[in-house]
């Protein structure tokens, strides 16, 4: 394990960014989101959650797939180049990393999404333990330990020092490249980190959502849940916006569209939301015609369909972003609880 004083972090970032792209939480106009590091970027490691999850480091909100150009009446297709440069995502949280694992299930399964795969291959993740988890957090429910995060490099911020532990080959390589700025940690440092772990876990226990139960949510209950009348009640305040989807670290749906640049057509994909009325619009119309159906889809997918297809892995990681950001104060916790209460009553 290594450590680095907080005030030396900018030197560290400069050093990393000198060799590869570096994405980290940056405050832009009052909001913290992952962005590329620049000399004058307002880096913010204290805010617990970025507004958007850092998933777009691997699965950008929009990315070009290929360009079609026309010469006379012949068309030419030029695929977009795959990511071929290494990059570092610094400051992801344990839940965010878990989110990437969920995305891996989708994009790295056969047929492999080459765009995603290339980014994953070139990306090194530096994860940070959550110093002060908040009331909206429920990662514990999904088996995430925010005190002991796992990625290429794991870090802890304790009393003005960042403790640094490489966990993978990629992590080692990154560590090597910045070694000159790191100081080797000793036994007392190990103790400090351990104390931090304990503190974090103690807080997690106190969080209001920590006792949330996922009992009864698995692939077997598909029809029961699907046909439940509860959905009719739950969806009503939903505005059909895509906030939950776009801040979510695991939502992976995208739309493929064309953009006429005047010199050719760029085919790109961009995040889509199952909450949108035109989601999966087809020639005959839409397969989900009501907001209730769309609302149900989102949670059924996360809590039933996805685990059914992925060895019980839920596609929710308990980051709590939707809890914070839903304009109508709806969220996955309320859904889970609603079914729980009903279960109790029956």
């Amino acid at each position, binding site marked *: 394990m290594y450590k680095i004083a907080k005030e030396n972090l900018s030197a560290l970032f400069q050093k990393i960014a000198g060799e590869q792209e570096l994405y980290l939480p940056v405050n832009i106009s009052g909001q913290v989101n992952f962005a590329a590091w620049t000399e004058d970027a307002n880096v913010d490691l204290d805010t617990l959650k970025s507004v958007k999850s850092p998933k777009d480091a691997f699965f950008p909100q929009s990315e070009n797939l290929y360009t079609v150009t026309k010469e006379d009446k012949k068309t030419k297709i030029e695929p977009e180049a795959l990511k071929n440069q290494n990059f570092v995502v610094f400051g992801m949280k344990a839940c965010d990393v878990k989110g990437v694992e969920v995305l891996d299930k989708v994009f790295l399964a056969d047929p492999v999404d080459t765009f995603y795969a290339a980014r994953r291959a070139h990306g090194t993740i530096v994860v940070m333990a959550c110093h002060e988890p908040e009331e909206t957090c429920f990662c514990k429910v999904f088996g995430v330990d925010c005190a002991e995060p796992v990625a290429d490099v794991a870090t802890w911020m304790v009393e003005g020092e960042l403790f640094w532990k490489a966990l993978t080959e990629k992590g080692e390589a990154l560590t090597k490249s910045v070694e000159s700025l790191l100081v080797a940690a000793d036994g007392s440092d190990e103790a400090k980190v351990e104390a931090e772990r304990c503190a974090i876990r103690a807080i997690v226990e106190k969080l209001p959502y920590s006792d949330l139960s996922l009992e009864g949510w698995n692939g077997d209950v598909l029809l029961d849940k699907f046909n439940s009348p509860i959905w009719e009640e739950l969806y009503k305040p939903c505005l059909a916006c895509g906030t939950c989807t776009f801040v979510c670290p695991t939502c992976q749906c995208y739309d493929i569209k064309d*953009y006429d640049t*005047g*010199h050719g057509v760029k085919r790109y994909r961009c995040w889509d939301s199952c909450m949108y009325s035109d989601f999966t619009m087809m020639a005959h119309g839409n397969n989900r015609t009501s907001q209730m159906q769309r609302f149900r889809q989102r949670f059924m997918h996360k809590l039933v369909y996805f685990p059914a297809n992925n060895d019980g892995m839920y596609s929710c990681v308990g980051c709590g972003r939707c809890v914070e950001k839903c304009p109508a104060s709806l969220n996955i916790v309320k859904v889970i609880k609603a079914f729980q209460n009903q279960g109790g009553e029956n």
Partner: protein
Amino acid sequence: MSIETNEEFRPKIVAFCCNWCSYAGADLAGSSRLAYPADVKIIRVPCSCRVNPMFILRAFEKGADGVILCGCHPGDCHYSTGNFYARRRMTLLFSMLDYIGVENGRTRVEWVSAAEGVKFSQTMNEFVEKIHSLGKNVRLGDLRCKN
């Protein structure tokens, strides 16, 4: 001729002209051989009130450097009231563009009657000159269209 030289800035200018007054004014400018730069391309619309602010933003998005809307003089609209609505819409749109920091000479409204070939040509000459002084539109263009 498909190769554009970078030496000289040739602005792309879209002029929306109402069918009854301004398009006819442009025709008169033509038949009177009153020259104005070829950068101006005219789109015929039935009335200035047909021009949706979206068209103007669209033009900028796709690479236009200036957009001008010409219609009948207030009170002379072929449809009586069309240009009055257009006037309010454009006033608010232009004010908004100014507000978000788009140079406020890139858009213009001019009332040109069917008899004002001279005014049409003068207006276009002035407008092109103005756009030249402002240079390329970078604030409203879509990066994807620039290549």
